[in-house]
């Protein structure tokens, strides 16, 4: 702890005795609290504010109690706070189930449990809850940084666990940390073996609809959500068109989740029918020739396929993947029965020109027109005025769309990947004040405006554009090509695609390459100072990130089977993998047992030396007990054999010196043992020769 930090602590805590003078209990508690704070901290960005505030207050409170060595609050206080936390969770999410309420409750429980930490042993629940909390971070991000931060957390938790089992004295944190790291390091081979061999199986039940969005897509959309992936240049999928036709990049829309439900903050998918036999696509008419293509999809970590619009589910056009059930949703998005966690390859046929002349039932219509009350009031007012000004009372959807797109073109909107943060009424702010954003801002604002003007509209997410690779003729689509656009509905014409981003940044749509994101402050400064260094850093980082993605995040059953193949298994299967896992674990266990067996025969070398020498003396008829010092034995030898045994006695005296004098040595002198045994044998022969005569 450096001086300024120490000074800051002294100011904050008047009776701070100094880190090293803290009583052991207080120090251990503070350490555990710090580890918990570090573990909870990355959740700050997606937990409700009250949960963060409550956690901080409870942790600080517990820290002060530890410093003052004061009594902990009673059980009823804790139960009361817990009830309040559950109530607030329900208030925040309208449910207690699901990912986010679950994480919120886990964080609340974790902090409250610290108030019950009386004995060090009580902390076990906290540790196990802590490990669980570490896992919840991976639901949001599996980046290298997250992994490193959580490695620190796990280390901290293990250190606290080790401290709890060192009941004597005041072991230093460094010592406990070293012991914890030792356990983890020795356990690393087990981890690597299990990670590589443990058979990857599909989700055990259901498909978690709220899986994370490391990729550009997720099941939901909120303003600011896509900004992070603008930097992600990793490949989402590759496409090759069979007939050598080169479609224009602007016509390449790969359809992902269709988001029609809007709660003011977040856009979600409609809960459509997901099970049952594939239905014939309702009301879609394809136009012109189809386009056959082959797609190699990297692990997308969502239960869907982002297929080229529009890929129907007719024989010969629909994709087929072994082990997955594919389904075309009524909103024209392709669904899989489980999360796609491996690289998959398939062929399909798409018709870039199509009409989706679907009817709209009452529910769908209500949803496609719904604007949550209390959000974005100014856009609603603006829409009413716009309708009056442009005389749109009786216009159809197409005319209204044209008018709004014209407004976007003329009202000074600009396209940027760094639009800054938009608040609660983000659409108001974007549409009327700042007018700067990227696809998700344009698409969501456009849909809100269209709904306000009485036109059913929805947001479509997916990928748009592609790079043609000069080498192999593949089109490469990167995560940064994630895009959002809109569809509006008009009687008799059905859903029509409208891409409001194209109205302001046609180059984003027409040109394949995405806009490069604006550099941050540090990166910008670095770029002006040393462009080469910047490039090099970026290249190294990308290489590192790429290996991380390849070896850790995208490691799946495909790679496991490849591994088996490289080990010489011809047609590897799930069962082979399981057998190999069991084999590896058994080998490890046997290794451990063998080591323990070997260790059993290891005894103190000094004891072993004395045992050999006593054996030799017994051969000479000299009784030697385990507790007798070499000096005593030497006297006994001299008494029995006199000058004849002087060399033997001298060796015993030398041993006495080696063990107990100031010049004692650490390890036994094996040469001395050998000489002793040799002299003893010689003496025995001499004595035997002398006895008969």
């Amino acid at each position: 702890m450096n001086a300024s930090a120490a000074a800051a602590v002294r100011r904050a805590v008047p009776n701070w005795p100094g880190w090293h003078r803290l009583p052991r209990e207080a120090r251990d508690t503070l350490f555990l609290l710090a580890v918990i704070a570090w573990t909870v901290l990355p959740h700050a960005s997606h937990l409700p504010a009250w949960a963060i505030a409550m956690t901080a207050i409870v942790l600080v409170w517990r820290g002060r109690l530890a410093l003052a060595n004061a009594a902990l609050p009673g059980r009823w206080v804790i139960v009361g706070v817990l009830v309040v936390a559950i109530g607030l969770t329900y208030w925040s999410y309208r449910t207690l189930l699901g990912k986010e309420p679950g994480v919120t409750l886990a964080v609340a429980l974790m902090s409250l449990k610290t108030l019950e930490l009386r004995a060090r042993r009580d902390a076990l629940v906290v540790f196990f809850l802590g490990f669980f909390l570490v896992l919840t971070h991976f639901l949001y991000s599996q980046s290298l940084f997250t992994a490193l931060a959580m490695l620190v957390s796990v280390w901290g938790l293990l250190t606290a666990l080790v401290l709890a089992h060192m009941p004597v004295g005041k072991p230093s944190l460094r010592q406990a940390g070293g012991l914890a790291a030792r356990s983890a390091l020795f356990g690393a081979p087990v981890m690597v073996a299990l990670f590589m061999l443990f058979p990857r199986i599909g989700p055990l039940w259901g498909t978690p609809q709220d899986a994370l969005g490391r990729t550009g897509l997720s099941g939901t959309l909120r303003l600011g959500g896509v900004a992070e992936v603008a930097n992600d240049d990793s490949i989402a999928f590759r496409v090759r068109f069979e007939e050598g036709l080169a479609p224009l990049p602007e016509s390449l829309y790969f359809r992902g989740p269709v988001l029609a439900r809007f709660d003011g903050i977040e856009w979600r998918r409609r809960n459509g029918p997901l099970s049952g036999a594939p239905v014939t696509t309702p009301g879609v008419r394809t136009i012109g020739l189809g386009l056959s293509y082959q797609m190699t999809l990297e692990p997308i970590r969502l239960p869907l396929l982002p297929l080229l619009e529009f890929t129907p589910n007719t024989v010969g056009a629909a994709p087929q993947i072994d082990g997955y059930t594919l389904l075309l949703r009524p909103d024209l998005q392709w669904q899989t029965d489980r999360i796609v966690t491996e690289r998959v390859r398939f062929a399909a046929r798409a018709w870039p020109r199509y009409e989706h002349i679907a009817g709209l039932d009452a529910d769908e219509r209500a949803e496609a027109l719904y604007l949550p009350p209390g959000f974005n009031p100014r856009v609603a007012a603006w829409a009413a005025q716009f309708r009056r000004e442009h005389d749109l009372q009786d216009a159809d959807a197409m005319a209204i769309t044209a008018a709004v797109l014209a407004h976007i073109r003329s009202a000074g909107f600009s396209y940027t990947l760094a639009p800054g943060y938009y608040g609660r009424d983000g659409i108001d702010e974007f549409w009327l004040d700042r007018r700067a954003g990227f696809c998700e801002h344009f698409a969501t604002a456009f849909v809100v405006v269209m709904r306000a003007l009485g036109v059913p509209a929805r947001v479509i997410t997916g990928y748009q554009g592609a790079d043609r690779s000069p080498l192999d003729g593949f089109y490469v689509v990167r995560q940064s090509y994630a895009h959002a656009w809109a569809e509006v509905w008009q009687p008799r014409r059905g859903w029509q695609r409208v891409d409001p981003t194209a109205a302001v940044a046609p180059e984003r749509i027409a040109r394949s390459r995405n806009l490069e994101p604006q550099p941050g402050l540090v990166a910008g400064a670095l770029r002006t100072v040393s462009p080469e260094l910047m490039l090099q850093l970026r290249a190294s980082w990308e290489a590192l990130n790429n290996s991380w993605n390849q070896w850790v995040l995208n490691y799946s059953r495909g790679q496991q089977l490849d591994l088996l193949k490289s080990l010489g298994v011809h047609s590897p299967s799930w069962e082979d993998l399981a057998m190999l896992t069991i084999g590896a674990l058994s080998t490890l266990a046997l290794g451990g047992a063998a080591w323990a067996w070997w260790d059993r025969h290891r005894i103190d070398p000094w004891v072993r030396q004395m045992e050999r020498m006593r054996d030799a003396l017994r051969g000479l008829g000299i009784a030697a007990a385990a507790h007798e010092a070499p000096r005593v034995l030497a006297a006994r030898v001299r008494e029995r054999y006199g000058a004849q045994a002087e060399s033997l006695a001298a060796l015993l005296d030398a041993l006495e010196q080696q063990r107990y004098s100031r010049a004692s040595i650490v390890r036994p002198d094996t040469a001395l043992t050998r000489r002793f045994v040799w002299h003893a044998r010689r003496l025995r022969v001499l004595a035997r020769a002398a006895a008969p005569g």
Partner: protein
Amino acid sequence: MNAASPVAPWNVRARVRGWLTSRLPRTDTQLLTQGNVYILPTRAGWMFALTLIVLLVASVNYQLNLGYVLTFLLAGSGIVSMHITHGTLRGLTLHLRPVAPAFAASPAVLDVVMSSPSSARFGVGLRLLDAPASTLAWTNVPAGGQSTAHVSFVPATRGRHDVPTLSAETRFPLGLFRAWTVWRPLAQVLVYPRIEADAPALPAARPAAGGPTQARRSEGGEVEGVRAYRRGDPLKLIAWKKAAQALETGADLVSRDTSTSARQELWLDWTACGSMSAEDRLSRLTAWTLAADRADADYGLLLPGLEIEPGDGDSQRARCLEALGLWH
């Protein structure tokens, strides 16, 4: 407390345990090896396993590769911790120091020296096998060194008893496993009778037989002179100043001479205890012995079939207490 204490025939568990314990050889120095260190998961260990299963299921269901990494990292650490826990006891040498005699119904202290020939051992606890876990005496054993743990037990009856079966255990480092050993020391402990609480005052002293009738009473207060130290002289009789001078000149310690000629004799008599049970009489005589020793009187002990001549000092006290402890 004894291994021989009767066990109800229906208590199978206790009987099996008693049988297993009785098979152990008795020794005062026990080297812990693979053969006598046992290990099982603790409740926390089972909880940890449950946590691992939850983490694994979550990783499978959400297809989290980092979740797998976390789960397997913790599993690996857990497996390694099992070896460390076992290794904490394996290789230790337990040695029981000679046990000082104790009084029945008051604690007797056992000093156990633990030495480690190799690495340091943390969090090793020692207790009686039959005592609850809260009585564990914790100690760390430094690398290549030794440390001492004290456990106490309360002998119920007087006599010469086997030292109760001991158990050393550890949960270091993660508390997921508990390694333990059961050790039956060879040593016996001499237990004096229970000291009677609120015993009546000492009986009156009689003039020593054959001594001067007009004896001056002296309780070591008046110094009559000095004499050479004799074995058994209480510490407070040593004339320290004179003794220091004497030691410098190479002579022996010097004790005050408290007019032995004027001694009174105090007989602690079995029959003087009134009508009480034998054990209660022994308890009273024990209390009297201690009181007489504190008063620095010359005292003798009269038991049926046993008579100890009057004397004083630590040796007399030990002799009398031993007689009381072993009388039957």
